[in-house]
């Protein structure tokens, strides 16, 4: 009888195998973008994590920009987009086998950690021109005074609000914490949450919390200071009062934007790169800075990915990579990137131009200079940033889900951070 079942089982197994093969094949297909191959062109490999992200078009947009610079410099580019979660582990394995790409893009808070491994080249040695770039971007891209990573654009966060929903409730966009709490409470009801933010157990959780944490006067070197606890208490209250969904601990920023577009959240904390998607969805929205407790814009973390040139024995390729990075840092490319993916141009003069061209970008450009590099000052954690950030995002999760009080959560996090940094 078992034998009778065998054909069935083997058939089903074969089907399962076929399914898994086809799905993995689909998942692993890279998104190669070939620039026009001219004769004698240098061939460079590039890795980034713009798989789609943002408005769902950062992937192709980055491809366009790379292609343009490739064509201009007679360079063929073999591009691979790797999901954000996998990029660092892929990079480490590649470093071990000396198979790193010629140009590697990584999230800026990871830069110092990767540079600290000794795998990256100092950009100025390869002719990369850093004139006029935001100082906090240079900070984020530096380790021990040398610049290893740089970007054509940076990003930041603000509060987006749904103008129609605020008018209906008769409230104004908030400018202090008390107003955020109040406004969110008034906007909540009928299947709509007053505010949405994202607090997953990833760097995204810490990144979203930092404007509030720093706005209150918190210090990453001492997570459980009264100021830090006050900030976490504020977030926790938003969730326990029902003004924000309990699901915030599972949402990434894309999910938050989906909630906002669907009209399920009246306000959202999110990044500048969503401008495109919001315009496309024809949402009537406004933008205000994330406030400090008693008003005024809170300093947010500087966001964005930086380009690096991994060390290799192929000097010709490294020189070409330097040329490519320089082209990506040109005013023209920065403006194009701002247009395509709503990133703030990394050169202050160009950013001012972008704010003129796209008024919705103005609040973000205004805030850009005050944004902090996460591993940089004032805490200056350097390569140790992730050892603080991880306990922090766990503390946020523990407090928001009620597993611990904000005080307890941050005290535990501080202990963990200290033991990890030993």
């Amino acid at each position, binding site marked *: 009888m078992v034998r009778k079942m065998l054909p069935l089982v083997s058939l089903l197994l074969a089907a399962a195998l076929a399914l898994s093969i086809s799905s993995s094949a689909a998942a692993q297909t890279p998104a190669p973008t070939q620039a026009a191959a001219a004769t004698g062109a240098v061939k460079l490999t590039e890795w980034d994590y713009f798989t789609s992200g943002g408005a769902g078009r950062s992937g192709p947009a980055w491809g366009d920009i790379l292609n343009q610079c490739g064509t201009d410099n007679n360079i063929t580019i073999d591009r691979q987009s790797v999901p954000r979660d996998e990029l660092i582990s892929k990079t480490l394995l590649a470093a071990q086998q000396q198979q790193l790409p010629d140009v590697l893009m990584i999230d800026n808070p990871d830069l110092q950690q990767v540079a600290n491994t000794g795998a990256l080249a100092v950009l100025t040695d390869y002719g990369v021109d850093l004139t006029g770039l935001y100082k906090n971007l240079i900070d984020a891209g530096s380790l021990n005074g040398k610049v290893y990573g740089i970007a054509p654009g940076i990003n930041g966060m603000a509060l987006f609000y749904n103008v129609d929903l605020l008018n209906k409730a008769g409230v104004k966009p908030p400018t202090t914490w008390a107003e955020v709490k109040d406004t969110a409470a008034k906007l909540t009801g009928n299947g709509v949450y007053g505010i949405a933010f994202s607090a997953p157990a990833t760097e995204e959780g810490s990144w979203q919390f930092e404007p509030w944490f720093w706005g209150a006067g918190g210090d990453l070197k001492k997570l459980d200071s009264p100021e830090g606890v006050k900030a976490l208490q504020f977030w926790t209250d938003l969730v326990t009062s029902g003004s924000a969904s309990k699901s915030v601990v599972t949402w990434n920023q894309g999910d938050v934007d989906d909630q906002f577009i669907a009209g399920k959240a009246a306000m959202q904390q999110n990044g500048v790169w969503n401008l495109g998607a919001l315009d496309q969805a024809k949402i009537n929205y406004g933008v205000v800075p994330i406030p400090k407790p008693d008003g005024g814009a809170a300093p947010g973390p500087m966001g964005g990915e930086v380009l690096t040139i991994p060390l290799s024995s192929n000097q010709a390729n490294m020189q070409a990579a330097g040329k490519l990075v320089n082209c990506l840092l040109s005013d023209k490319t920065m403006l194009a990137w701002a247009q395509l993916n709503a990133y703030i141009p990394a050169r202050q003069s160009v950013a001012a131009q972008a704010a003129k061209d796209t008024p919705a970008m103005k609040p973000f450009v205004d805030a850009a200079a005050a944004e902090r590099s996460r591993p940089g000052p004032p805490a200056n954690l350097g390569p140790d940033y992730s050892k603080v950030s991880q306990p922090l995002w766990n503390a946020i999760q523990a407090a928001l889900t009620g*597993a611990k009080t904000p005080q307890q959560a941050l005290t535990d996090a501080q202990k963990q951070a200290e033991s990890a940094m030993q």
Partner: protein
Amino acid sequence: MIEKQRKSLTNGPIVGGAAASAAAPGAPRVLGWKQQHQLIGLVFLLPAVVFVAIFYVYPIVLNIVISLERYTAKSFVTGEAPFIGFDNFIRLFGNPDFTVALQNTFLFTLNSLIFQFVIGLALALFFNQRFPLSRLLRSLFLLPWLAPILVSGAIWVRLFDLDYGVINFVLRSLGLIQQPLAWLTDPHLALVSVLIANIWIGIPFNMVILYGGLQNIPNTLYEAAMLDGANAWQKFRYVSWPLLRPVSTVVLLLGLIYTLKVFDVIMSITRGGPANVSQTLNTWAYSLSFTSFDFGLGAAAGDILMLVVLVFGLIYLRYAAREGR
């Protein structure tokens, strides 16, 4: 006869023994028939030995070595990882998340096994009675097993959703709960949620094997029991259950080892969160290595998991050996 065979073998271009004798031409003593057979046997064994060495022994040894080193992101580039003895284990046991992960591993495994087995057995008994469409239904029950786990995980995330999930909708419609349950974000429920999903995934495996076991029990035994006046329960208790015992043990032990190593179910549903409350040793080891880049600590957690699996693996081998006798 044997003499003749030997002679032909020394002349023939045959592996092992022939090569050895060719090295000493004219030597009166060549490998015996038995030794040659053993040698040929070993050659056949070689692919398996190489496979096991490369894909099992080497990674396990490497993992143990790394767990005794300060192995960080930097080690990948420089190749340097200082030996620090049992430091990683001391840090591991001192971490409050370790207790949670260990406890979760046991809770998760034990409950998965019990529910998968009981429900699987119930379904197997059910399908053992012939009724129209039973074959079709039985095949449909295999679907959870066939769907890629990441797909199942994504679907469960939707089902469990706090505000829009089907599960909360149904429970509320039935009046069983007033407030929606935060399946994925309530620290007391997150592990239960992944457990439910894992049980659902594991039921078909239990059902198929147990159904096969039931089919192997000769009908005559049930007929004899019926003649003795046994009712349905007695038929199960005194015929099916004892005869199913060998199959049950195998199912449970395989299920145990499989469940201890479950990774994708948890990663795709809660990622071990919120705040690590649904981590098992497996997912926690991964997060230590690939989120914290503390590969030494992650490897130490992996060692502990290997130890647990090894203990149960040995129990299984012992059992299998006893059954084989």
